[in-house]
C-alpha cells in the first residue's frame, strides 16, 4: 500500500502511523474498499464458528469413554494391494492449496485488467474446488459404506462419526458456496462486467475487479480452515 496517496493526509510508518490512521477522520483502514473490510470482519466471525466446532470436537473427543478410532487406519486407501494412510486426504489438500494459488493469480490479472487470463484462472480455481468437493463426497461414501454414521461408528467412539460429518460437512458447504460464486464471477469476468462496471443483478452496485479479491479472501480462508481441520482430524 506504499503507492496509496490521500490528499491532505500524510502516512507515517510503524505504530505511530497506525495510531494516527485510527484516530483520523473518515476511514480507519485508509484506502481499503468497503467490501474488502467487510469480508475480513466476516471471516473473523467465521473463524469463531470454526473455532467453536473444533473446540467442541476436542471436548467431545476428551469426554467420550469409548476409544477414539485411529485416523491413519480409518482414512487409509487400499491402493495396489497395500493400505496407504491419508492418501486421498493428501491429494485433496494438495488440490485445495493449489486452487488458492490460481485464485491469487486471478486477482493479480484482474487488477491488470487482463480479462481473459483472470477469467480462466477463476475457472481453474472453481474446478479445483469442485474436485475437492467431489473427493470429499467419495470419502464420505466410502466411510458410510464401511458403516460410519453420525450416530454410530464401528471403529470406536460414535462421536467420531458425528464430528467428522458435521465439521467436514460445514467446511464442504463453505467450499461449495465458494465454487458457486467462482463460476458466477468467472462468467461475469468473461462477459466483461468488471471492465464495463456493469451494475450487479441484485445489489445494483457497480462492478469492480476488487470483487475478485474479496472472493479470493474468502477462498484463502476456506483453504486455511481446511489446514486446521486436516491437522485436528487426520493427524491427531
Amino acid at each position, binding site marked *: 500500500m506504499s503507492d496509496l496517496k490521500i490528499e491532505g493526509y500524510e502516512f507515517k510508518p510503524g505504530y505511530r502511523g497506525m495510531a494516527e490512521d485510527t484516530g483520523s477522520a473518515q476511514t480507519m483502514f485508509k*484506502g481499503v474498499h*468497503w467490501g474488502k473490510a467487510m469480508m475480513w470482519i466476516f471471516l473473523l466471525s467465521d473463524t469463531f464458528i470454526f473455532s467453536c466446532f473444533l473446540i*467442541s470436537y476436542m471436548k*467431545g473427543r476428551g469426554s467420550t*469413554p469409548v476409544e477414539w478410532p485411529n485416523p491413519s487406519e480409518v482414512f487409509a486407501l487400499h491402493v495396489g494391494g497395500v493400505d496407504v494412510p491419508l492418501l486421498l486426504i493428501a491429494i485433496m489438500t494438495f488440490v485445495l492449496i493449489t486452487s488458492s494459488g490460481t485464485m491469487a493469480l486471478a486477482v493479480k490479472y484482474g487488477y491488470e485488467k487482463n480479462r481473459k487470463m483472470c477469467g480462466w484462472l477463476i475457472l481453474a480455481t472453481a474446478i479445483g474446488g469442485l474436485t475437492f468437493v467431489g473427493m470429499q463426497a467419495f470419502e464420505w461414501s466410502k466411510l458410510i459404506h464401511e458403516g460410519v454414521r*453420525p450416530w454410530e461408528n464401528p471403529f470406536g467412539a460414535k462421536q467420531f462419526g458425528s464430528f467428522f460429518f458435521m465439521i467436514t460437512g460445514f467446511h464442504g458447504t463453505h467450499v461449495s458456496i465458494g465454487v458457486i460464486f467462482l463460476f458466477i464471477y468467472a462468467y461475469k469476468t468473461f462477459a466483461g462486467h468488471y471492465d464495463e462496471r456493469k451494475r450487479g443483478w441484485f445489489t445494483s452496485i457497480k462492478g469492480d475487479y476488487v470483487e475478485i479479491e474479496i472472493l479470493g479472501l474468502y477462498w484463502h480462508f476456506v483453504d486455511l480452515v481446511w489446514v486446521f481441520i486436516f491437522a485436528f482430524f487426520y493427524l491427531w
Partner: protein
Amino acid sequence: MSEDNNDKIIIQSQSSESISGGGSGSTTDIDYVRPAEVGDQDLYHGHSFITKWVFCQDAKVIGVQYFLLATFTGIIGLILSWLMRLQLGFPELASFMTAEHYYQFVTMHGMIMVVYFLTALFLGGFGNFLIPLMVGARDMVFPYLNMVSFWMFFIAVVVLLASFFVPGGPTGSGWTLYPPQSILEGTPGSGMGILLMCLSLILFVAGFTMGGLNYLITVLQARTRGMTLMRMPLTVWGIFTATVLAMLAFPALLVGSLMMSLDKILGTSFFMPTILQAGEVLEYGGGSPILFQHLFWFFGHPEVYIVALPAFGIISDLISVHSRKNIFGYRMMVWAIVVIGGLSFFVWAHHMYVSGMNPWFGFFFATTTLIIAVPTAMKVYNWVLTLWRGNIRLNTVMLWCLGFIVTFVNGGITGIFLGNVTVDVPLSDTYFVIAHFHMVMGIAPLMVIMGAVYHWFPLVTGRMLSEKLGKWHFWFTFLGAYSIYFPMHYLGFIGVPRRYFEMYDSPYVTSAVGMNEFISTAAFIVGAAQFILIYNIIKSLKTGKPAGKNPWQANSLEWLTPSVPPEHGNWGDRLPVVHRWPYDYSVPGAKEDFITQTTPPSDVTNSEVEKT
C-alpha cells in the same frame, strides 16, 4: 476550576499532534478539514411502494421495520409474562394453564425478550436508524445486505412464533435450552418445538451477521469529513462495540443450536451422555452436556452486554442533551465501553457455578466478573457527574434517564452478590436471580429504549410525543417495575425457587403467597401502562405538535439534516463537515447553549470550546 483548565491544556497538546492525523500543517485556515477520501455513495432509490417501504434499502426505513417487528414480538413476550404472573399470583384464575404451558411461556418469554426484542431493537432498530445519521453517511455501506438482514429477522420471528402451533407446542426447557432435558421426551416441546427454536436462532444469527457487518463498516470506513472516532456520539460507540461482541459471540450460539438440532434429528450424541429413561437405555451415549452450557454462555454473557452497551451509549447522549452539559469524561466513557466489551468474553462461566465445574474455574470467573464492576461503576459516576450542576430539563426523556441510573445501580449491586461463588450458590436458581437480571438487563435497558423513543420520535416522524402522557407512562412503569422486582429479592432470600409452576405445600407458602399476589397485580398494571406509549405514538402521529428542526437543541449530526424527517440519502446535495465533538453544550462565551458539530471554529472564536 483550575483543574478544569489543566485538563483542557492537556487535551489541546494531545490533539494538536494526533487528531490532525498526519499533518495538514501547510494550511493556516482554522476551518480546514481534509477533503473527502471516498467518493459519494451510489444509492438505489426505490420507485414503487414495495421498494420504498417493504423491500427497502434505506437504513432508516429498515430501522423502523426492525423497531416495529421487535416491538410486536416484545408485546407477545409481555403477554406471556402476564400469563406466568397470573399462574403465580392467582392460580385459581389460571385453571386453563398446565405446568407444561407454564414452562413453555417461561422459555418463550425469556428468549423473545433477550434476543428477538432487546437485541433486535437496539442493534437493528436504533443501530440502523442512528448510525448513518450520526456519523454523517448517506446510508449503510451495503444497503442491499441490510435489507436482506431485516427479512432474515422476519423469517426468524415467523419460525419462532410458528412453534406455538406445532404438535407439542414451543420448547419448555427454559431459555437456556440445556440438554439433555430439552430434547428428551417429558419436556414440553421436545419434538418440533426445540427444532424450530434452534432453526429460528440460526436464522437470526445469519440475519444479524449481515446487519452487523453493515454497522461495523459504516462506522469504520464511511464517516464524514472531520468525523474522527473520538468525535462520534457515545450512542455510536455503544452500538459499534455491541456489534463487535455480537459478531464474535453469536457463532457459539449458532454452533450450539446446530449441534443440538443434530442430536435431535440424527441422534448424534454431542451433548447426550448415556441416559436411562423409563427403565430403558437410550441410543445416546458419551456426549457432554456441559459443553452446551459453555457454548451457550460464551454467547449468553456477551449477549448481556450486547443489550447493555447500546443502552449505555444512548443514555449518555440523552443525559448530556437534556442536562445541557458535556458528557463527563468522554474518553473514559469510550474506553469503559470497549473494556467492558472485552472483559465480557472472559466471564461466561459465572452462569455455571452450580454446574459442578472445577472450583478454581469459579475462582477465576468470579475475579473477572468483579473486575467488570470497575469500568461499569466509572460510567455510573460519569453519568451522575454529567448531571451535576447541569441545566437539567426535567422532561420525560430526563425522567427515563434518571430512572435508568437508579435501576442500573440497583441491578448492578445485586450482580456483585451473584458474582461471588459463595454468595451465588445459595441464591442460585431463586427469585433473587430473576430480580437481578430483570433489573439490570430488563428494566434498565427498557428505560433507555423509552427515553430514546421520546427523544428521537420527533426526528423519525416530525412530531413531538405528548409530554403529559409520557410522564404518566414513566411513573406507572418506574414505580410498577420496582413493585415487581423489589419483593422478588426477598422471595429469593427466603429461598423461593425460580421456574416452579406452583409452590404446593412448601414452607414458603405463607410468606410468599401474598407477595406473589402483589407482584402479579403490579405486573398487570405495568404491562397495561405500556399501552399508554402505544396510544401516545398513534395519537401523536396525527395530532402531535410539529417538531420543527432540532427540537431539543442537540449538537449531533442526526438533527442537522436539511429536511426533517430525513429523506433517503440523508444529507441532500452536500455531506456535512464535522469540526467538533457532539457535546459542546453551555460553552462559556458562546452565543447559544449548544454548538452543533458542523459549526466551524471561526464561528466560536470567543468561546472556551474543548479541543476534540
